């Protein structure tokens, strides 16, 4: 048996004339949400909670990793570089009345080898972590002026 993740059809305009009532479109979206909730946890072994979106950018001096980590206190974020892998781990504690609920999050990304790993910095703002990985001097693009005689 093969499990295929249900993808909710975004373009439901073809249904619009048949279901002119807003209550139906609400039901439709609710069904989509239930599928997402059920299959999202089921198909990925780590579960949706353990992963968070990560973006990679670069400019001429640095490589940047931006990770969406809402609601995590700064002391619970750890950023590690080992060889060419950057690992971001975080834990979030949510108070539910008397019980505290802890969620661990971890992600590893491959980064270019040409990173000065001793100069990596990270900042956290509005729930987004930005890791700045400076490039080694020799990896930076260099402008060479050649005089043509």
């Amino acid at each position, binding site marked *: 048996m093969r499990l295929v993740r249900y993808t909710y059809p975004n373009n439901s305009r073809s249904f619009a004339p048949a279901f002119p009532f807003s209550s139906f*479109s609400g039901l439709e979206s609710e069904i989509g949400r239930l599928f997402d*909730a059920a299959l999202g946890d089921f198909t990925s072994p780590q579960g949706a909670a353990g992963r968070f979106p990560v973006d990679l950018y670069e400019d001429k001096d640095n490589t940047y990793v*931006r990770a969406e980590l809402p*609601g995590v*206190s700064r002391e619970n974020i750890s950023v590690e570089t080992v060889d060419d892998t950057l690992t971001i781990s975080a834990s979030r504690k949510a108070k539910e009345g008397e019980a505290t609920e802890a969620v661990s999050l971890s992600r590893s990304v491959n980064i270019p080898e040409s990173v000065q790993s001793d100069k990596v910095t990270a900042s956290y703002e*509005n*729930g*987004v972590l930005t890791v700045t990985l400076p490039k080694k001097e020799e990896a930076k693009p260099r402008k060479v002026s050649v005089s043509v005689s």
Partner: protein
Amino acid sequence: MPFLNSFLPSLSRSLSTENRGGNSSATSSVRPSYNVKETDDGYQLTAYLPGVNKKDLSITDEDGVLTIRGERSWKQPSEWTSLYRESRDLAYGLSLQHENVIDADKITAELVDGVLRLTLPKTEASKPRKIAVS
């Protein structure tokens, strides 16, 4: 418990019209992950809005529809090239319908590190009342 939240009777969910169409980039938005918990006095809504600043967030309650809209305050600098993307630049949008059981004047909101916590108190009329038998 996302399943329990899905079945809360008085906070039924509906996609707002701006989420449906998706043909205008100015109004299109993504639904943030969120949950709703019912307490004795009201509802506690938690929505995850990473990248949203307090000034870029708007919360309105009109005609029994609570709407949350958050713009991402961070813009990719022009000299940055993206190598790999998982997040989206779209604004967050969430519309929740309720049957006017919420006291709109007493809604309180708190946004800390990209997590929005909304306290939605129930109106006095919608709270269960104990009737003493004489």
